[in-house]
């Protein structure tokens, strides 16, 4: 493959910004799906479309890395960051998919709370990714992501505990919601991972 010696830094930042926007859009859509499920709800196919868009953007980023001799950051950091953002969307899509796959009858308050935190975390992630070029003014976004991830840990733990508070809760429901809470928590963890990676990039390139 022919490598370009002329760096196209703008492309990298542009794709990262789009990845951030896509992650936030996915979180908003999944929150809407959970809130309205099962009656007035977003179809999972729409969430799947955003997940595919995320995959396409990630592939575009890898293509850029493979064709650019000079990258704005270490290749490893670009790769890891792209993967973390992809994980955010993948786990959101998985949680959305489980609603239909498990024939969930209705959502749970704790899942709605997790979705709300994901909307907030991805909003800040998107803002940070949109300003990656300047590497300044990003700390408050990273702190906000961390706060939401901490809150998410607490909510996920409490949500799972609620499933085991009574011996006579349906085992089917326990299986359903343990998986769904887990997928939402994984997405929030991936937001935190992406935040850490951005923080590392800032330090390395200061």
């Amino acid at each position, binding site marked *: 493959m022919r490598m370009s010696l002329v760096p196209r830094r703008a492309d990298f930042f542009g794709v990262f910004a789009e990845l951030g926007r896509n992650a936030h859009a996915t979180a908003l859509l999944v929150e809407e799906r959970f809130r309205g499920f099962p009656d007035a709800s977003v179809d999972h196919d729409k969430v799947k479309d955003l997940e595919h868009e995320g995959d396409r953007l990630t592939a575009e980023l890898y293509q850029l890395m493979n064709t650019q001799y000079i990258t704005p950051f270490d290749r490893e950091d670009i790769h890891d960051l792209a993967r973390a953002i992809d994980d955010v969307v993948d786990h959101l899509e998985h949680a959305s998919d489980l609603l239909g796959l498990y024939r969930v009858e209705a959502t749970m308050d704790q899942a709605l709370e997790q979705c709300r935190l994901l909307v907030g975390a991805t909003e800040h992630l998107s803002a940070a990714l949109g300003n990656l070029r300047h590497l300044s003014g990003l700390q408050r976004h990273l702190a906000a992501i961390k706060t939401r991830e901490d809150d998410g840990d607490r909510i996920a733990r409490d949500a799972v505990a609620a*499933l085991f508070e009574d011996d*006579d809760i349906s085992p089917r429901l326990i299986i359903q919601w343990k998986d769904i809470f887990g997928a939402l928590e994984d997405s929030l963890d991936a937001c935190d991972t992406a935040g850490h990676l951005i923080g590392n990039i800032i330090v390395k390139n200061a």
Partner: protein
Amino acid sequence: MIVRAGDRTASAMLAAVAETTGTRPTVVNNSGEAELALRSHGRDLVVGDPDVTALSILGNDAQDGGPAFVGWLAARSSARTALMLDGGAAEVLDAAMGEAELAARLRRVVQNLAVPVPAAATFGGLTVNARLHEASWEGMPLPVTPRESELLQVLVAAGGATLSREVIYRQVWRWAMPRGDRTVHVNVKRLRDKLAAAGIPVEIVTQPGVGYRLRVDELSESRDQPVVTGL
């Protein structure tokens, strides 16, 4: 089948044994829930510890049309077993029995029960029969799903009293409601929409922090009493 033992462990164990007979029992935690279950689901079989299961919910004996009763003893006692059998109990189970014996004895009682007859509940002009998945207002059928008919029948059986989401969940879904679950909320909303679309003077009222109750505009709260009918 309604199960109420003296402690949750025993209730859960009896419920698990009851399921081997092909029945998903309703586990209740107090006499009020037991009476509600009887009014909602009709009378067939109650498995319970007579020390904690009020005699009023057992009826007097099967000949009076009360539910068949299987006694539960946390500790084996010949004297108490004899008393219950003389009192009309179809069987007496105790904690000394192994699971296989409990299941076999309960299976025999269930098999000897008469086929449960449909039990309808009425509240004003509203009639609900969850076993037949039917609901009607003054003879006009209402388009409810089986689940919705069960929920409506529980509300009707409560006779205008407010039921918590946890009690409704237990009565309709036959499991304990996990904290944060919105299943009752979703199904109440669906029912509300259908009742409103039917244009009938029946409303499911929310009492914030407490639960839901049924209101029929033509009835005052002081005079309406649910009537559970059956053959």
